């Protein structure tokens, strides 16, 4: 150490921070300055490879880092000052925590000499973020910065990923220390000691799969996180096993694959949920049996054996008791499992195709009531808008190069139902926390990471107003992001629940909005309002090919509902269907 000291430059803490970020391969930081982080901002000019994106609210900085991470699988970085800057990060960190997204958040902190004295803009951010980060650090000395930051990166991306916060006092940023990137290397990552995929368990899984007559794969976010998309598909194809997806697993398998069923759970199509309820074997891959996908637990898939492949041991038997648990990285586990399945074993024959036939038959039944088959009746439905945006991208051959970023609400569920995702990491959405205001900033993160891709924001009129200030960031960063506001004049998902459960008492769900096209124009962003279905595709093309940001204000049917819907407490197969005679869907006399 003493020898190498001469070779290692002495830097300030803030320079050490930025040099460490650069060493970790970081080229973009989303952030907002303030007193306690000013030394870092002062040092930025010495690190030209790091581009700083100035946001309009720190919550957005966290969502941008999140969108960046979801689009690439790499760690996203955000930065904020102490006190209010740090507390503004909270919702973004919680969003990333719930969806297992690797981000590193850097916050400035008051000087270590005044820590604990309620100094100006002092807040205990490591205390506040304890339950919403995978881990956090308080760093009070320049010598500790490189190690803490490198450890933060390792923790964020290893095992089940998640957000990590590093809080650095101002005096640590200002002090000097020797910088040695390699010496700051964290100890080798320690896998969770309870990972287990024993050969006996794998053998049990093999037997269950071979004996199953009605198996279903439940594909979750872990499929994408593990990069196991092809392995899962290969297993499904070899044994003709249909695949149902969670919201975050929707882009794990191509939607147009014959074995792909689509979204399961609260707003899953009836054939998907029925298949799960009737299954005799569930293969849960990288998913956590969230209440949005199980419905009433006591009635969940009552006759099936369950195999759970999951990297987080604390998820095993949490909500649903499983028969075989294979705890580990999905890709690794499948590499052990799949060879045993194919070695001299017959793929499931007639029985297998019988099961698929059964599912397809119920699918045929359900789709006659599907809004998507409704002829143009002069109304504009959100489902049609989303379908047509998909259609436009597909026709242009851009599906593999398109990322959809949704907000939270009805439009999010319609997106999940009607946008047929083809490629992994093509859907970015807040699943676990359901954070309104997520879409616009997350899209900025995604577009920054993938400038060559078409990025569409699909956002409600409510959620858009939560983070609309980031329109300014889009312009400042010259990002050609397409924004589809699904404008129904309501906090639609709240209104739908009030319709279904609260006797149509629309308390605080109608929402006034500015003219979004004018709002965009005020930022120098072009836009258009669309009222007719026929105008959807031409405008989608216009937006996609303009090479600039473009906002489309879709004035859709105000009181439309997402169907099917599972009411709270109901079982997965007890779905509320779209009413047979939905007045909304009636055709004008002259048609």
């Amino acid at each position, binding site marked *: 150490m003493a020898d190498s000291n001469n070779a290692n430059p002495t830097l300030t803490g803030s320079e050490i921070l930025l040099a460490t970020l650069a060493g970790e391969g970081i080229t973009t930081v989303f952030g907002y300055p303030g007193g306690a982080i000013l030394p870092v901002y002062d040092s930025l000019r010495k690190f030209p490879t790091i581009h700083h994106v100035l946001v309009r609210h720190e919550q957005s900085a966290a969502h941008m880092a999140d969108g960046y991470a979801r689009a690439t699988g790499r760690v996203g970085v955000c930065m904020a000052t102490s006190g209010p800057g740090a507390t503004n990060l909270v919702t973004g960190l919680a969003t990333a925590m719930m969806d297992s997204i690797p981000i590193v958040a850097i916050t400035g902190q008051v000087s270590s000499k005044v820590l604990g004295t309620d100094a100006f803009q002092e807040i205990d951010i490591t205390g506040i973020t304890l339950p919403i980060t995978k881990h956090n650090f308080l760093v009070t000395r320049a010598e500790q910065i490189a190690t803490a930051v490198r450890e933060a990166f390792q923790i964020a991306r290893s095992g089940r990923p998640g957000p990590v916060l590093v809080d650095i006092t101002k005096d640590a940023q200002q002090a000097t220390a020797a910088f040695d990137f390699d010496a700051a290397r964290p100890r080798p990552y320690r896998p969770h000691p309870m990972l287990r995929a024993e050969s006996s368990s794998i053998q049990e899984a093999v037997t269950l799969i071979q004996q199953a007559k009605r198996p279903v794969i439940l594909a979750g976010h872990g499929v994408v996180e593990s990069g196991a998309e092809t392995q899962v598909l290969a297993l499904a194809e070899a044994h003709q096993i249909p695949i149902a997806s969670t919201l975050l697993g929707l882009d794990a398998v191509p939607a147009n694959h014959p074995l792909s069923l689509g979204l399961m759970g609260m707003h899953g199509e009836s054939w998907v949920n029925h298949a799960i309820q009737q299954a005799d074997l569930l293969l849960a891959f990288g998913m956590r049996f969230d209440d949005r996908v199980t419905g009433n637990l006591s009635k969940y898939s009552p006759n099936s054996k369950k195999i759970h492949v999951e990297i987080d041991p*604390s998820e095993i038997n949490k909500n649903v008791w499983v028969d075989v648990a294979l705890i580990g990285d999905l890709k690794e586990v499948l590499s052990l499992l799949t060879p045993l399945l194919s070695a001299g074993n017959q793929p499931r024959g007639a029985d297998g195709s019988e099961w698929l036939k059964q599912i397809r038959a119920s699918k045929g039944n359900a789709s006659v009531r599907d809004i998507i088959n409704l002829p143009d009746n002069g109304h504009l439905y959100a489902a049609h808008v989303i379908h047509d945006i998909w259609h436009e991208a597909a026709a242009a051959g851009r599906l593999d190069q398109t990322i959809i970023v949704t907000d939270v609400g009805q439009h999010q569920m319609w997106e999940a139902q009607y946008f047929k995702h083809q490629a992994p990491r093509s859907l970015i959405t807040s699943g676990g926390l359901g954070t309104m205001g997520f879409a616009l900033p997350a899209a900025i993160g995604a577009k920054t990471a993938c400038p060559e891709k078409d990025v569409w924001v699909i956002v409600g009129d409510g959620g858009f107003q939560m983070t609309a200030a980031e329109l300014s960031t889009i312009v400042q960063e010259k990002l050609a992001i397409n924004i589809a506001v699904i404008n129904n004049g309501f906090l639609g998902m709240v209104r739908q629940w009030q319709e279904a459960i609260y006797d149509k008492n629309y308390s605080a769900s109608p929402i006034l909005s500015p003219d979004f096209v004018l709002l965009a124009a005020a930022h120098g962003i072009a836009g258009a309002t669309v009222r007719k279905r026929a105008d959807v595709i031409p405008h989608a093309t216009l937006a996609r090919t303009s090479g600039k940001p473009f906002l489309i204000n879709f004035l859709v049917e105000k009181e439309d509902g997402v169907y099917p819907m599972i009411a709270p407490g109901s079982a997965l197969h007890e779905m509320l269907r779209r009413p047979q005679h939905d007045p909304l869907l009636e055709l004008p006399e002259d048609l």
Partner: protein
Amino acid sequence: MLHTFVALVQDRPGVLTRVASLFRRLNINIVSLTVGESERPDTSRMTIVCDAHENAAHRIRASLYKLETTISVDEVNRTEAVVRELCLIKVAAGPNQPHGLHSRSQIFELAQVFRARVVDLAPESIMLEMTGSASKIEGLLQVLGESGYSILEVSRTGRMAMRRGHHTSRVLQALGTRPTLNPSVFAEDPDALPSDQTLPNIFDE
């Protein structure tokens, strides 16, 4: 039911908060929690007793391991571990007490039966110190109460636990300590217990 976990954690500021916060998050009540130094440098040892559903043990252990500051977690039950608690009891024992001047000698007798020690004598009170299982401590407190003594103060440390034997301890395994070469010394090998007495955790080694 009561679960007892022994956790080795990094000896750093904030680690106790992380553990305590975890139980709060899981909505599980901590019955007792003791922390102190262990045989390893920079490593604290915690014994956590909590009241949770019988199936909760796996999830608690797995969640404890998810804390980056956790080194190892072992779940122990009565059959395989020595569980002890330290208790200080201050009893009123002055001339004005119901038993008057006899109270002191009677308390001495009771203390002897329960193997408690007298550690302080004051004109109006006696302080007893006792180490033992929770039930033994509760026994002494009960007898004192039923004999008409007024208990002025009680301070209990909460349980500490340590596996019997040592070549099978998962704690030591986690530390990479080699098992001893002379197994006959260790009669109480928990791994040799009938399986229904070992950990109920089906995912365990």
